[in-house]
């Protein structure tokens, strides 16, 4: 099991790699983009098991207080239900219907869904989430989960 600092480092690195993928999508296309993403996805895949193992082990944790937002993007084939949000004042449970739930103190919640090339995607962004509890639901996990300081 990795340490908390290693966990945060891995999450940061995954976030950086995802930003590179986004940058590549603006610059490349076709098979070139496919190759470009292939390399970065492989790096992300190396990071993900330790991140998920840490999150599953902890069940609940209070991340460092400077974390200002939490974002979960779900990609996959088939319809993804729009997220539903229960409670807005001191705590909230966000249930994406078939993927993952979070709990946390929430200042603001924005929800969005968009069509992605690989299928439907639902994006949930929670601003001011000071703590959260990731729960696997139906075996699906976030394709990327971002903690933004």
């Amino acid at each position, binding site marked *: 099991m990795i340490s908390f600092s290693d966990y945060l*480092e891995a999450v*940061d*690195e995954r976030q*950086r790699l995802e930003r*590179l993928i986004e*940058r590549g999508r603006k*610059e*490349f296309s*076709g*098979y*070139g*983009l496919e*190759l*470009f993403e*292939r*390399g*970065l996805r*492989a*790096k992300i895949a190396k990071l993900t098991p330790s991140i998920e193992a840490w999150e599953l082990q902890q069940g609940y944790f209070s991340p460092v207080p400077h974390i200002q937002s939490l974002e979960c993007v779900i990609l996959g084939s088939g319809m993804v239900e729009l997220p539903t949000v229960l409670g807005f004042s001191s705590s909230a449970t966000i249930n994406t219907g078939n993927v993952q739930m979070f709990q946390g103190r929430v200042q603001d919640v924005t929800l969005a869904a968009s069509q992605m090339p690989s299928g439907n995607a639902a994006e949930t962004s929670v601003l001011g989430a000071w703590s959260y509890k990731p729960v696997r639901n139906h075996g699906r996990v976030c394709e990327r989960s971002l903690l933004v300081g």
Partner: protein
Amino acid sequence: MSEKNILIPQFDEFGHLPVGGHECTWEEFYERFRINNHREELCNKLVELVRLAKNCGFLGVLIGGSFPTAKDNPDDMDLAWVTDFEVTKATVKPECVQLMEDRATTVNYGWSMQYLPIDHDHERIQQWAKAFGYCSKTKRDRGMLVLAL
């Protein structure tokens, strides 16, 4: 110092090359970095991958990671293979890429492989060398070497 060594800059105070991509020949690369048995072993592995990469149709490679640093016993090399702008599955076959990746991840080796469809565009090579040169462990930018195949 020989005139050749001027092409590869000196390390900074952290033992890293200056940020960006530094073009050099294979002779210069070996002279500067193949300086002990451990590094020679890594170079032998690289030679094998380069042979495959040439057969695949790649044009060049950016070498990063801890290898092009002052570290005596670097862990690995991060490799970013360069293709032409309009790369297709005919010019770089997917099965060939898979073979390279399989060879790069054999026992004792877990090298990271990226792909960049940027041809010999100097400006883009510099931009991506900066992006790929970042070290998440040290939180520092490191330079990469740029070699033609």
